[in-house]
Structures are given as C-alpha cells and as structure tokens.
C-alpha cells in the first residue's frame, strides 16, 4: 500500500517536471513573452488570466504585465512594508508612498535610460520633465495623467462636483440649483415626496465618504464653495498670490453648519463616517443615494457603470457646481493638469530595465494605445469608411460589464498614456471621449436633463475651465509632503484632527460648541503657520519658474 503510494507520488512529480520542461521549451520556438509584475498602490480590479486585449498587446510588445492592487491598507503602509523588505515588483505606481520609495533609493532614474526610447523622452516637453525632477536632478516617475494630445475633447467632467441623480432634478422640473441651501432643499423635498427607492428600500438622500485619504469628500467642499479651483490643500488668492487655509473660513463654518442641520433632519446617511470605500461604492451602485460630493474618477468608472448596467436609467448622476451663496463664480472644471506628484516607476527590483523601458515606449504607440483604450478591433469597436471608430449597442453594453472588462479589456491604466485625441488626429483616446460615441451612449434621461440646462455634455453643466494658474495645482506638492518637515508634520496632524472632528461636527447635538472645540484642538495641535509657510514657498517657487526666473 505504502509502496504504491510512493510510486504514485514519484510518477506525479515526474509528470509535473516533464510538463514544466515542455512548457518552458514551448516558448523557445516562437517569440517568448516576458512577464513583468507591477504594484499599484490604489484599489483596483485584477484582470483575469487570458485577458484578450492583454494577449494582443503581448503579441505586439512581447510583454505581459501582471498588475496587483492595494487591498485594505493605506498606500504608505503597503509601500513601507515593501521598502522594509526590499522586495520590489518591476513596475510600481506608489501613489502616496512615492516619496518613501525615492528616499529609500528604490527607484531607477528614468532619465538615465531614456536616450534609446524617444517615445518616452518626447512624451513630455523639456519644461514638463523638469517639473518631475527630484532634488538630485533625476526623474523617478513618469506621469500618466493629464498629458493631452492636440486638444481635450472630454465631454465628461472628471473632477469634483456635487453629483445629483437626474430623477431628482426631473421631479422638481429642472430648477436652477446654485447654492448649498438650494441643493439640500431640493434633496429634502424630493425625499419627503419619494422616500422609497425602486427596490423598496429607503433612499439615502446624501452620503459622505470619509475613508482614509478619500475624506476629501467631507473636508474640501469649502474650497469649491468659495469659488476656488481645486488646489487641494489650500486656497491661493489669485490677486495677492497668498495661500489661505480653507478649513477655518466663514464659508467652512457655514458648510459644516449646513451639514449638521441636514444631518439632524435625517438626510445624511447615518453611517457615513464609518463606511469604507468599498461600502460607499456598493451603496452608490444600488442607486439609492440621491446626491454626494466626490471626484468623478473616484466613483464614476465603477458605480455609474453599475447603475447603468442594472438598468436604473433615471438614477445616474449629473454634476452641479454648487457655491456658498449666489454671486460666487464656481470653478469646478479645470483644464487637464499634469500631475507630477508621482507616476509610473521602475524599481531596483527590475532585472530587465531595457525590457521595461521598451515596453513603456511600445505602450505609447498608437496601435497599442488603441488596444488599451478601445479594445480589439471588430470585437470591442468597429471602424467606418472614414476611419472613425464606433461601437454597436452590444459592444457598449459589454464595455460596462465588470466581468467582460476583466476578461477582455486591458487599459494598463497606470502606464503613461495620451488623453485628448488619438495620434491619428481623428478619434478620441477613449470611447467615452468620442463625441459620436458619447451621444449614442447617453441615456435619454440624462440627455433630457442636460438639455433642460442648455448643455450637451456633462462638462457644459459647469462653467468652462479657466486657464490654469502657474502654481496650479497645489495638491501635487502637498501630496508629497512627509512628516520630516514641520509643515509636512502639520499637514499630517491637520488630517488627523479633521478626520476625528469633522464627522463629530456634522453629527453634533450642539454645533457651535463642537465647532469651537474643533477649532481649539486644530490650532492647538497643528502648526498651521509652518504648513502655510511651506505652501507659500512652493507657490512662490512655481511662479518664479513660470516667469522664467
């Protein structure tokens, strides 16, 4: 008995080894596909094995990248563990952990290798590359976002806004909603008249995401309510060019007071402060939430698609540019900006740096860009006689189906890419940016809503973007602050205090007492002046750079 077992085991092991050998030899005849691994310090969805577009890209480039994503950790923790163990993937998008990786000497200086790869070297202009350089003069990350080819044609507002379901606006007869008071009045009236969602549960009139760094949904509206563009961490007065802390302005107080007032009326999701990002996305995906503040990229590509896929055609959202009071001009929509606070990096753990560079370079050819963002020709899109890309209704339906996406589409979204127009100058970089596609795909409910406000696209719901100021956006500086400087420490402490006190302020029985308490702790624990001084220095530096000094 025992002998039989041993023999069986031996046979099994032998078979496995032979199979392994054969598999290894398999690639020798043809072009062998290299595999790189990549970690992205953001939550995301893993692709399934044998993903069609990924295979097609591998045929052209000879490379396949296995992407893994952040799971229930903060980016800093994940990157911290990685630098402590020195166990790095080949590619990394380190997000908030970028500075940690640079400090740990874990990244390859891109500019030392790029001479053979013009696609990479010419991806940004000389000045733009200079913005990416670290103190030692090297470039450790290639920005992925905000690089626009020709012109920005996006009909979608990808940034922050007050999002509201079209059914709410329709019910009220598409009124003009400009101020925060009007916004909550509308939500309140609608809820009173329509307390139930189509699945029989109660609607959630308003929710706020407070999970980790995404708590900007709670804390940064005062910035927008005062009519400032999204500098992220501070308001920069365009006249005086001085930084202002938006956390303690009268508008901030008014905003939180308003939230407190509507919370007491039961209009805010009672679990807003403890929900995780996943729970939040799940909640919005049900279509129960009437309104919220968020950056579109934070929820749109998942939840909006889920709502559409579920057939809740009157429950998708349109953006509103809400301000504190009439007379303030909103600036929610910005021209695309280059995010130089991080990007795609190659780590010291990569054994084949030329191979990795070549892959990045290959990804920037139009053939591969089309595969990444449009999919496989005649499967995910078709081309008409004029060379314009279009999709059939079935193709459109597949493209929002999560399972289909995991099996068939491979955008390699955290690799460098061109937004705006394709390099052929005909098509947009992505279906949802293609005007013909956008209008074909638009739900009738949304079309009606947009038309009622004299708009054709989501972007037209908001004021057109103004030219970006030379210091814009300041978040690309504050994102990389570390606790090593007094200002960075203050920035981290501010975030801690706000995390703790702002939900309290919203839920307080006595708003004024809680607000006073918040301000007291805020000024006691955070060295605001140190933070503002560092921000001011950066504003001045950027202005100086822009003015060529």
């Amino acid at each position, binding site marked *: 008995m025992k002998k039989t077992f041993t023999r069986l085991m031996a046979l099994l092991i032998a078979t496995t080894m032979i199979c392994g050998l054969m598999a290894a030899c398999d690639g020798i005849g043809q072009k062998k596909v290299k595999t790189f691994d990549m970690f992205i310090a953001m939550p995301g969805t893993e692709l399934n094995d044998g993903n069609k577009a990924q295979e097609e890209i591998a045929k052209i480039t000879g490379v396949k990248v296995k992407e893994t994503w952040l799971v229930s950790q903060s980016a*800093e923790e994940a990157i911290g563990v990685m630098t402590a163990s020195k166990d790095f993937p080949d590619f990394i998008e380190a997000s908030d952990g970028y500075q940690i990786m640079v*400090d*740990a000497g874990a990244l390859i200086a891109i500019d030392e290798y790029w001479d053979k790869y013009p696609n990479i070297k010419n991806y940004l202009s000389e000045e733009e590359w200079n913005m990416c350089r670290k103190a030692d003069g090297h470039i450790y990350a290639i920005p992925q976002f905000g690089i626009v080819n020709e012109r920005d044609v996006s009909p979608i507002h990808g940034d922050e806004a007050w999002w509201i379901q079209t059914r709410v606006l329709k019910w009220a007869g598409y009124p003009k909603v400009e101020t925060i008071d009007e916004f909550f009045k509308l939500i309140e009236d609608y809820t009173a008249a329509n307390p139930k969602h189509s699945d029989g549960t109660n609607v959630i009139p308003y929710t706020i995401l407070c999970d980790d760094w995404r708590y900007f949904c709670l804390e940064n509206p005062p910035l927008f309510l005062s009519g400032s563009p999204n500098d992220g961490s501070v308001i920069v007065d365009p006249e005086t060019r001085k930084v202002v802390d938006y956390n303690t302005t009268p508008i901030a107080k008014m905003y939180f007071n308003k939230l407190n007032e509507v919370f007491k009326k039961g209009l805010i999701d*009672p679990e807003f402060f403890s929900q995780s990002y996943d729970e939040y996305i799940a909640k919005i995906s049900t279509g129960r939430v009437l309104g919220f503040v968020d950056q579109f990229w934070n929820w749109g590509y998942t939840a909006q698609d889920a709502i559409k896929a579920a057939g809740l055609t009157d429950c998708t959202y349109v953006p509103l540019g809400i301000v504190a009071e009439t007379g303030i001009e909103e600036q929610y929509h910005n021209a695309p900006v280059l995010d130089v606070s991080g990007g795609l990096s190659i780590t010291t753990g990569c054994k084949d740096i030329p191979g990795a560079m070549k892959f990045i370079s290959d990804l920037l050819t139009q053939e591969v860009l089309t595969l990444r963002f449009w999919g496989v020709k005649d499967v995910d899109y078709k081309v008409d006689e004029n060379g314009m890309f279009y999709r059939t209704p079935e193709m459109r339906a597949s493209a929002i189906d999560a399972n289909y996406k995991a099996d068939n589409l491979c955008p390699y979204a955290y690799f460098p890419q061109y937004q705006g127009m394709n390099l052929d100058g005909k098509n947009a970089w992505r279906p949802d940016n293609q005007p013909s596609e956008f209008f074909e795909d638009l739900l009738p409910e949304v079309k009606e809503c947009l038309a009622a406000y004299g708009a054709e696209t989501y972007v037209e719901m908001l004021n057109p973007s103004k030219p970006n100021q030379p210091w814009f956006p300041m978040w690309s500086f504050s994102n990389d602050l570390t*606790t090593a400087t007094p200002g960075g420490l203050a920035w981290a402490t501010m975030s801690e205090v706000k995390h703790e006190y702002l939900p309290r302020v919203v839920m307080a029985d006595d708003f004024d007492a809680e607000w006073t308490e918040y301000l007291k702790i805020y000024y006691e624990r955070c060295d605001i002046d140190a933070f503002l001084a560092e921000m001011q220095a950066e504003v001045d530096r950027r202005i100086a750079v822009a003015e060529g000094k």
Partner: protein
Amino acid sequence: MTDNHKQNLSDQDERLAEENAAKKTLASIKRRELAYSKSSQKTSSGPNSDKSTALMSRKDKRKLRSERNAEPKVELSRRTMLRQRELILITIPFVLYGILFYYIPLGGWVMAFQKYKPQDGLLGSQWVGLDVFKHLFSEASFRLVFRNTLAMGIINLILSFVFAIGFALLLNEVRLRAPKRFVQTVSYLPHFLSWIIVVGIVRDMLSVEHGIINQILVGIGIFDKPLNFFSKPNLFWWIVGFSNVWKETGWNSIIYLAAITAINPEMYEAAALDGAGRFGKMWHVTLPGIKPTIFILLLINVGNVLNVGFEVQYLLTNGIVKSVSETIDIWVLYWGIGQGDFSLGTAAGIFKSIVSIILIYLANATAKAAGEERLF
C-alpha cells in the same frame, strides 16, 4: 539502579496503594478525604505519609511527584546527554526556531538607537543614542495609544476571565452529555474565524440601519431611535471587549473544563454529604480545584495585556473613535511602516516589550507573595 527507575517503582507503589484504598469502604474514605482537603486548604501541602498520599487528589499527587523529581538534581554530564540524545535531538528544531525567529530579529533593535535609513542599512546609519526614545515619550499621541492599549488590555483580560470561567462552570453543570458537547463545540468555533470576518459580523450587528442589536433595543423600547454605536468613543473599548468575548470565550473555557474534569468526583460527593448544593459545590470544590490553572493563565495573560491586538481595532476604527481605538501596534505600523520612521516604530516596540516583561514579573512576584501557583 538509577534515579529514574526508583522513581518508576515508587510511582507503581502509589498506584497500588491507590487501588487498595479504593477497595476500602467508601464512607471512611470520604470522611478522611474531607478531613484532608480541609487541612490541606489551611496548610497547603506539607510532607505527607504514604497513606495520605493515596487519599490525595490526583492534582496534589502530581505536584508532590514533581517536587520529588526536582529533589535529586540531574547533572549535565556527557552520560546523561548521551542517554537522552533522542530528547535532545527532538528539541533541536525548536531551539533553532526560537533562535531564528525570536532572537535574531532582536538585532533590529539597534534601529531604535539610530537615525535609521533603509538605504544606509543597520551598520551605516547614524547613531543617536536615546534621542528616539526621548522623542517617543514626548509624543502626545504615543501616550494616548499607550493608555488605549492598557485600557483595552485590562478590559479584555477581565472580561475574558470572567466569561471563560463562568461559562466553564455553567457548562460543567449540564448533565446531558450530548447537549454539553454540542454547546462546547459550537462555542469555540468562532475562535477559528479570522478577525476580518468577526469585524464584519460585529459591524452588521451594530449597524444603524439593519443591525439586530439596534432593532431589538428599539423594538423593546429601550431606545427611541437606533444608536450609532461607532460614533461613541466611550463605547469603543467595550465593543472590542465583547467582540473578544464572543470570539474567544468557548476556546478559553476548554482549558478550565479540562481542569474541572481532573477534580476528583469524590470531592463532590463529600461536599454533598456536608449539605452543599449546586452553587456550594461550585464555590467550594470546583473553583478551588481549578484555582492553580486560573493563576497560571492569569500570569501568562498579564504578560500579554499589551498584545491586545491589532486587527480588531484597525478594522473597526473610524475617524471619530480614532483617539480611543489606536493601539501601540497600530501606532507602530503608522509611524514605522506608513511614515517610514523605522527607528521610532522600533523604539515603541521595545518599550512595549519591556513593559510586558515588567508586568509579568510583577504579577509573578505578587503570586509568590500570596503563596499561589506561579510561573517561575
């Protein structure tokens, strides 16, 4: 004849004596045993005659035996080592395991005395003496997490002891074998669930919208509207404490149940003769019977007070309760790993270990002074 053989013989004698004793009339045994157990409660165990040895509970006997074993010291000679070579061989992997995973990592402690940078390595980093510790103790947030850790540790310690012992006592009173076993098995199953699942359950149970606890409390009219449990900082420690109770009570009670089965059933009969009811027996027989177990476990757990955990607080927390939910471990993760300040994280870890060692010594000394069972 070697000492061991002698020991074996005397063990056999004991067993014979025990059998003989059993043959004697029950009543006389009971009388004597009662007398013995009463006297032994006063004087603990002194030198006993062979006859009384036969009448001692098994537990005391084992103790006596171990005292005897300790008496003739085994010399560490080459001969003994040769004779016990199998035993020594068996222990080698465990000793190696200990060295590899408990002692070698301690080398990393030098980080706490350096301004450690990963790229410079352990040897290349700049030495700063006790600066890191000074920074640590001046950090208000560290004092806060130390308080949280200690508070949750003590709450967990007390709750887990009370519930595990209480549960073991009650379960022991169940007469029917089948339900007793069933309850025991079911009660320790949660121990095998990962905290992330337990936290999911806890969050669902306490949820405002559909949580069963809120539904019950509102249903029977204790609250007018659902209570938002996670928005109350003063409830957080108790939520953690009771989550722990739910998860670990069954598991912790196993050891007490085992100790209870080791109590001589004759003691109960004797107590019954003296007119003790169920609770009387619990109080006068069962509890004193498992007292040594309780003390040993208490000592071990006091040393673990600061290891109050990481997952449950990490997963249950939110912005509002952060000031009461953060433990030393989370703090170490945030500063050490998250902010890349390895030195500060290590210093906090060292501090935690030292406090744990002090605690366990204090507890042991207290037990020694009180003349109770102790670890060393």
